[in-house]
């Protein structure tokens, strides 16, 4: 009998847990540890944040799903990993701390044979003074944040209907943020809702981003073949902003968010302020801060984790300049190099480097979008690791049997630009591969055949269908496994 413990129940962890449960006989145990009791389809938080969906529509209770699937569930946060066990008892274990209302703070040790770290990010609002819902700006990172943002938007619209002219700032709250696509979506949905409410003329909308140019999305931008040319995604992104009258500020590191004023620095070293009435600014991510200990109780966190608290896996972490980055730097199996029964997937693994060219302002402040590891790639990693672990348990495989390198993986992404069956639209994008490969695809770094993008209502229909499809899959309803990540 083997026990697999999955830390985290986001897209990657939840996918891994369901696939492990499907592949392993019931004599083996699959345990999921998640501090949240509800699963959240995070891409639809954008729609919660503009009031077009309720949080109940993008979440569901995990416990009944896991009970039905035969997965043991602990509502708790992982705090320690002991990958070599303790002196005299080498069985590895994790220490978790309950977040359930009836046992809040109670600690428990859970032994494991295999561990999947899918803890996702810590939303590091603290990196920028005043950033976040507990400070002076809003967020859509969680369903609660998104709901709070929707209330703030309602209030803003009410003020505008009384004649007020307001400034909306949407974007990234730090120079090292990731998930620029989410802010991009929110900006367009916000603009769409203001138009729908009939108050667009009274709104100034500014997109404030750490991308060197809009349309970078943390993947160094895309080249899309159109009209006989390979056109940079920045051209299309700028076109969309201009069409909707949204201003943009690029290459920005936000220093602080004060009440109604954001202070930022751009790549030219200029420090500026921007007054706002409503600011939705996403935070940078770090790992959740898991600690690791050896048999003697000595801390070995720095051996298992990178300085940003993400877990080191089978990547090449040698520091090197942008020009020397290669697709081979990226992990394939997500196995810890120190402990072969430990894996990290989704946002929890430490990327070897960014995808976008890192830059610094004239004053030396880093402005470098972090690489996205969410959505489709995240689910595929979870699947690959689950299949590898299942083979290790069932067939005694010594090495991971499945790979999911982001350098050999594509991504399909639909970025909403407004909700409405007839009037809504979205940008439908595909890219291949996620990590640019300039040796294989000289110039663009990606296949111009498989890297595409277009705007239209069809994208909105697809996004809406995907919302229901992935919720169905995540609820492990009949045939869930037929739906790909």
């Amino acid at each position, binding site marked *: 009998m083997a026990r697999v413990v999955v830390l985290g129940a986001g897209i990657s962890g939840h996918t891994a847990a369901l696939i492990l449960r499907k592949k392993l006989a019931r004599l083996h145990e699959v345990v999921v540890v998640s501090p949240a009791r509800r699963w959240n389809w995070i891409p639809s938080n954008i729609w919660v944040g503009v009031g077009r969906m309720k949080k109940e529509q993008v979440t569901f209770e995990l416990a009944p799903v896991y009970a039905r699937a035969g997965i043991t569930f602990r509502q708790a946060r992982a705090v320690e990993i002991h990958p070599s066990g303790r002196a005299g008892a080498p069985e590895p274990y994790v220490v978790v701390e309950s977040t359930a209302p009836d046992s809040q703070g109670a600690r428990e040790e859970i032994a494991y044979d295999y561990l999947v770290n899918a803890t996702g990010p810590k939303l590091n609002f603290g990196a920028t003074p005043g950033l976040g819902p507990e400070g002076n700006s809003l967020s859509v990172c969680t369903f609660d944040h998104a709901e709070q943002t929707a209330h703030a938007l309602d209030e803003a619209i009410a003020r505008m209907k009384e004649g007020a002219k307001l400034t909306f700032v949407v974007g990234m709250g730090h120079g090292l943020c990731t998930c620029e696509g989410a802010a991009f979506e929110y900006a367009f949905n916000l603009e769409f809702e203001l138009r729908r409410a009939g108050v667009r003329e009274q709104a100034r909308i*500014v997109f404030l981003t750490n991308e060197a140019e809009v349309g970078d999305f943390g993947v160094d931008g895309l080249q899309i073949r159109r009209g006989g040319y390979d056109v940079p995604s920045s*051209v*299309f992104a*700028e*076109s969309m*902003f*201009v*069409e909707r*009258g949204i*201003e*943009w*500020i690029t290459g920005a590191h936000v220093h602080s968010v004060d009440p109604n004023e954001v202070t930022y620095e751009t790549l030219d070293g200029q420090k500026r302020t921007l007054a706002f009435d409503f600011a939705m600014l996403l935070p940078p991510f770090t790992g959740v801060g898991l600690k690791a200990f050896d048999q003697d109780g000595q801390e070995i966190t720095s051996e298992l984790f990178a300085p940003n608290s993400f877990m080191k896996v089978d990547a090449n972490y040698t520091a090197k300049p942008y020009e020397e980055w290669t697709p081979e730097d990226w992990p394939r199996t997500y196995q810890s190099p120190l402990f072969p029964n430990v894996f990290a997937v989704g946002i929890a693994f430490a990327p070897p480097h960014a995808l976008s060219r890192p830059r610094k302002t004239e004053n030396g402040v880093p402005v470098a979008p972090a690489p996205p590891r969410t959505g*489709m*790639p995240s689910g*595929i990693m979870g*699947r690959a690791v689950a299949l590898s672990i299942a083979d290790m348990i069932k067939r005694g495989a010594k090495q991971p049997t499945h790979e999911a390198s982001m350098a*050999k*993986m*594509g*991504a*399909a992404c639909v970025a909403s630009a407004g909700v409405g069956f*007839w*009037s809504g*639209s979205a940008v*439908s994008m*595909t890219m*291949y591969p996620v990590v640019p490969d300039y040796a294989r695809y000289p110039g663009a770094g990606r296949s111009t055949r*498989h890297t*595409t993008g*277009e*705007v*239209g*209502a*069809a*994208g909105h*229909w*697809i996004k809406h269908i995907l919302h229901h499809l992935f919720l169905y899959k995540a609820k492990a309803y009949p045939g869930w496994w037929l739906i*790909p*990540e």
Partner: protein
Amino acid sequence: MGIASEQWRHAMKPTRWVVFFRTFVLYQLWRFLWINLRMVRMIAKSH
């Protein structure tokens, strides 16, 4: 010159027809099928 007008001058703008086709149902039904096909191909390449 404000940010918006300077940015407006340098950006590509869609024509009336491009904007029309973005919500023209018959065309979008065709695009719906085509985009789905593209995504399925991408999923197949990535698994």
